[in-house]
């Protein structure tokens, strides 16, 4: 969670105490959120955590029950035509017409966002090429695979070159190679000044974001950089110390104290995982201690835990602090 925008920056999204609940009790609760313009903001969370609800609130499709929300400086429910033209929205499920071809659906979306006839065809060819569907353009949507439908939906979102893109799980069902291509394209657009608000269940994709919000049970647990999330999850940097032979509990305790480690864990017969403040400071300190103790150290490596682990760790650590969420 953030306190407010950095001085001199432009906020694309500002939410305070944003709440929207449904009859079943699910929804989002008291979300405070700032998204800087020209960044990629990732929203990760398990199914039913409120990611899609948040996106729909940001688009104005849903109105909040409580709280304050501005997107591009206006309340989404009051967006005018010009403001809507700046939005690119990719819903979680395919919403395009199954009886139209991929190309026709793309043309439909281009007209929906008021793209002029002049230059439309060229732009359509650009985006359909980006999602690698040029050869399948004549295929009916109903005959396209889930991945192809997703790719076309993404192309339809990009067709009018919007300033603010709200993408609800854009890479679901897409192979890793193309996923990476998409993220590279998002980064490229980000560098051109576009703002992204992206939800994903692929927690590893958080690494491609500038800032990541972690959502669970409708509550925003934390917002940080990807690296910051790792540190939050494990209480600092994680290093693995590989020894030539196992050490005693007394030596381990001494090593932990020497390295000023917050946590330690034996992950192998002669391998110790330490959580420290700064991984770069650990290697010389531990090496010096081992030399004094006559212990052979084979390697000291910084361990980069996968974001899946980071996410699980964060949720297990932070969610309980919200008490009875459900």
């Amino acid at each position, binding site marked *: 969670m953030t306190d407010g925008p950095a001085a001199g920056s432009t906020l694309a999204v500002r939410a*305070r105490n944003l709440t929207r609940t449904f009859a079943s009790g699910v929804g989002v609760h008291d979300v405070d959120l700032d998204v800087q313009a020209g960044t990629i903001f990732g929203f990760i969370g398990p199914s039913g955590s409120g990611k899609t609800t948040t996106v729909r609130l940001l688009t104005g499709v849903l109105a909040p029950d409580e709280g304050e929300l501005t997107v591009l400086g206006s309340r989404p429910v*009051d*967006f005018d*035509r*010009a403001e809507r033209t700046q939005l690119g929205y990719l819903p979680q499920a395919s919403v395009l017409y199954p009886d139209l071809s991929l190309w026709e659906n793309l043309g439909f979306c281009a007209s929906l966002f008021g793209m002029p006839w002049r230059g439309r065809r060229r732009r359509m060819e650009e985006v359909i090429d980006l999602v690698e569907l040029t050869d399948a353009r004549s295929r009916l949507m109903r005959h396209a695979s889930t991945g192809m439908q997703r790719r076309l939906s993404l192309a339809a979102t990009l067709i009018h070159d919007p300033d603010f893109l709200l993408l609800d799980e854009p890479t679901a069902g897409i192979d890793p190679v193309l996923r990476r291509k998409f993220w590279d394209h998002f980064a490229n657009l980000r560098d051109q000044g576009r703002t992204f608000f992206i939800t994903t269940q692929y927690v590893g994709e958080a690494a491609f974001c500038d800032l990541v919000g972690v959502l669970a049970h409708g509550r925003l647990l934390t917002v940080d950089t990807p690296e910051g999330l790792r540190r939050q999850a494990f209480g600092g940097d994680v290093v693995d110390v590989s020894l030539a032979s196992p050490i005693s509990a007394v030596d381990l305790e001494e090593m932990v104290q020497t390295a000023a480690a917050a946590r330690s864990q034996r992950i192998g017969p002669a391998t110790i995982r330490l959580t420290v403040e700064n991984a770069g400071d650990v290697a010389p300190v531990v090496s010096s201690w081992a030399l004094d103790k006559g212990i052979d150290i084979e390697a000291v490596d910084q361990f980069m835990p996968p974001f899946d682990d980071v996410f699980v760790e964060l949720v297990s650590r932070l969610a309980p602090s919200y008490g009875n969420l459900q």
Partner: protein
Amino acid sequence: METCSDQITRLLSEGPVRSPAPAQASLDAHSRSFPHSSCLRGGFRARSSGLANGVGGAARERAEAQTGELADLLSERVELTATTPDEESARAMLASEEADVAVVVPVNAIELIRANRQAEITIQHDQVDPFERSFVEIFAAASVDEINRIVLRRMVEAGQESTDALPPLSGDLELVEEELDVLRGIAPEVLVSPFVAVTSNFQGVDVEFSHYYVPGVVVVLLQHLALTFAALSLVRDRALGTVELFRVSPLTGGETLIGKYLAYTTLGMVVCGALVVAAVFGFGFEVAGSWLWFGVIVLLVLLAALGAGFVVSAVARTESEAVQYAMIMLLVAIFFSGFFISLERLIPPIRAVSYLIPATYGIMGLQDVAFRGQAPRIESVGGEAALAAVLLVAALGLIRTRVMAAGTNGNGMRRRVFSQVGVGGRESLDQSGRSK
């Protein structure tokens, strides 16, 4: 001594004829055997017309008396609205729909009968519906048969009375012989049926049975097609989620609706074209009036039906619900739009429902154009246009509030709205969004 022809004259010129009980019973039995007899009495208004042109003095008085007497006979079956001295006035009343049938009575009936010819009582109408036309023909034949029976009976009665009072034969045998010659000169069928009924549409319209239903079929099919397309359109958009894309896009509810109107109107006109081509080349259907008017009416029917469909679409939650509404509308159109059953035969509350159906005005207008060869009556074009406008406004309102409005879930269930949007009666919020 009164001659036979004088007896006819007297019978036709003396005051109202009171039908004796057996004849009345016969009429009632006939009426009961006809399925629409009660509607005939209640539904038709008649205008009797004696052809008095060129008739003056005693002849004119006699003609008026004949007309009055015949009108009195016909009043058993119709509601008499007026008696006019000439045929043109009666036609004018038919044209203005002040009367449903005009009964034209010849003033020279006696001369015709003396000349061994039956006197024609012409019954003119404005019906294009073959069922209604047949009904008028049956009504006319039955009425004139009754008149003939009464005349014949009166003749016999008068003959018997004159025989009773017959003075001894004297030197007037020549006169008797002359009268007998006249009697011998009249064919028996003329004596038995001095009057004959002739029915015709006053505009000369004669519609074949198979052609009559073409406008109705075209209109009802187009209404059903357009209504179903429109009803399913937004429901499918909602089910698919496309409506969410509409709501995020710069498109307004009105623009969405206009786009759909354009698409489905174009489709409907194409379908109409195909139906008309099939009717013209398959059944020999012809349009007596303007094809432009035909197109205008079809266009209005489509717009009104699409409006109804979009209203259904905004109200229905599922495709099956929308289809059910569309089917109900189809059945209502078939039975209450004048497609099968003439509007005049419907009781007023049901007829009020008829005027809420786009097909009603469409059928009315297309029949005017196709059969009567005239511009559609103002109430059909105006009614259809008004209905289309009302349904457009209703559809627009419903789509704006139930489908496209921010803060709704697209299924017509408005959720609690953000307090700052100014919903009356809600507590105000401070700048942080918390309740004061």
